[in-house]
């Protein structure tokens, strides 16, 4: 069944009704890279099935589940659930494909100072020097678990455990666009000026979202992302 790699704790997938306009295919209960990879394989399979006439809308990946829009006049149809369940089982079993082909995107980042006003706080929390925090944050090829919050906002993980830091107690009313931030074991770049509660450690000039670009989002589910310290 499992074709390669280390064993993952697999639970049987579940398909649950999510209102009358969607179903949620649940592959796991935790933030887990292997489960998330299966979510993205399932998303591809659902898109392919939709292209051949299955009544699915464009799926939305979560950390451990996939939301599949369905026609409200068809929801609850057993055939739809069965088809999704079969695709989900297959996505959990076949784990050797895809990952090697992922794009790796680098994001040049100015750490600390005005660009990263919470770098000192993250360092204090970790019991490290700010320079160590930067080195650790830039040491990982992060996985795009999913997007949400705003167009182009990608949830990246996992941050090295030593620098994982909880959200700020009081969110900022305005986080500058391009801010690089940490919340628990996740890291992200804010595509727009927006309110936000994450710890800001740096800033980039890279444009995360451009509606006129194709594709408009720089980062897509399943991509790999590296942060590279830069002076400008």
């Amino acid at each position, binding site marked *: 069944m499992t074709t390669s790699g280390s064993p993952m704790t697999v639970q049987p997938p579940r398909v649950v009704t999510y209102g009358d306009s969607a179903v949620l295919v649940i592959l796991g209960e935790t933030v887990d890279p292997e489960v998330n990879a299966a979510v993205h394989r399932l998303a591809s399979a659902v898109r392919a099935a939709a292209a051949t006439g299955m009544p699915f809308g464009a799926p939305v990946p979560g950390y451990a589940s996939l939301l599949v829009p369905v026609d409200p006049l068809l929801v609850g149809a057993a055939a739809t659930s069965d088809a999704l369940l079969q695709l989900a089982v297959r996505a959990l079993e076949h784990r050797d494909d895809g990952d090697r082909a992922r794009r790796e995107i680098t994001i040049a980042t100015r750490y600390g100072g005005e660009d990263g006003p919470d770098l000192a706080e993250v360092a204090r929390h970790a019991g490290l020097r700010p320079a160590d925090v930067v080195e650790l944050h830039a040491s990982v090829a992060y996985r795009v678990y999913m997007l949400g919050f705003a167009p*182009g906002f990608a949830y990246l993980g996992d941050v090295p455990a030593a620098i994982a830091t909880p959200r700020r107690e009081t969110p900022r009313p305005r986080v500058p666009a391009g801010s690089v931030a940490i919340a628990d074991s996740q890291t992200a770049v804010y595509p727009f000026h927006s309110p936000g509660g994450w710890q800001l450690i740096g800033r980039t000039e890279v444009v995360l979202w451009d509606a006129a670009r194709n594709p408009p989002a720089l980062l897509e589910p399943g991509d790999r992302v590296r942060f590279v310290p830069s002076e400008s």
Partner: protein
Amino acid sequence: MTFEVLDGGLLTTIQDGGRPGFGHIGVPLGGAADPIGLAVANIVLGNDPDAAALEMTMAGPVLAVHRETVVGVGGADLGGVVQPGGRRLEPGAAYRLAAGSTIAFPRLVSGSFGMRCYLAVPGGFDMPVVLGSRSTCLVAGFGGLEGRALRTGDVVGAAADAPGAGTTTARGVGTVRRNATGATVAAATVRVFPGPFGGIDMHALDDLCAAVWTVGRDSDRMGIRLEGPLLQPGRGMVSHGVTWGTIQLPPGGGPIVLLADHQPTGGYPVVAVAITADRPILGQLAPGQQVRFEVVDVEAARAALVAQRKTLDELAVAVSEERRWLDSAGWAGA
């Protein structure tokens, strides 16, 4: 172009049937918060029900009419009026506007339900299509008119080659509004499916349906904050895709009902999800309005949607028959 904006109003945006298919890159569905209000404004003109229209909120805009046109009005009654003359622009009908006149939608008519009104023009408002839609995406600043709300000095309208002729006052549209949502200021009830219950306290659904909730002030196109008893949320699921109508229970706060501009993913516990047929009610809930929730089954949700679509289809037929009659009577272009 048809209109010059003399005053943008509280929040006036271009909206259509929305922008499906981009949730995986963080893009909200968007589109009219009250899809029935949008559909009625369009159908009375003979437009596609999802054509791009103006969505006005509580206090609407003041618009100078630079070119003679017909307009369709749907959704809540914001006291629309034409000057000079003072003719009312009530929702559920089409009106002919003379060049040189001014229209205004000053405030919600006392005692009437809702807070969002739609203004349609023949063929829809002429706006670029971005990611498959003309809707304004406020959070990312694209779509509609430069991704923002209308303001003084903007010029908007139908495409230059759009059909401007024909006039109509569609019959029975008041009935459409009532049948389409059934909501009034006295009693708005939103029907829901339970769950999905990922780690949620099972009593929360009973408590949600037992209470009478008040719509909070900090509500917008992304979601409605409800005020009422405190519910026990439970631990919830890790962040997952959510839908328009999802009712979340953030810790320590009132429930949040997601609307058209909601974020595509969320991690708060979900107690219930409103049925598709009741999205128009959600989109019309004004701050201070009271609302209840009621659990229904799949069959009831389906029946409600079928009935709603049938009502709109009948309206479209009535409008087209009336036009044919007017045309045959030599009225066209009058």
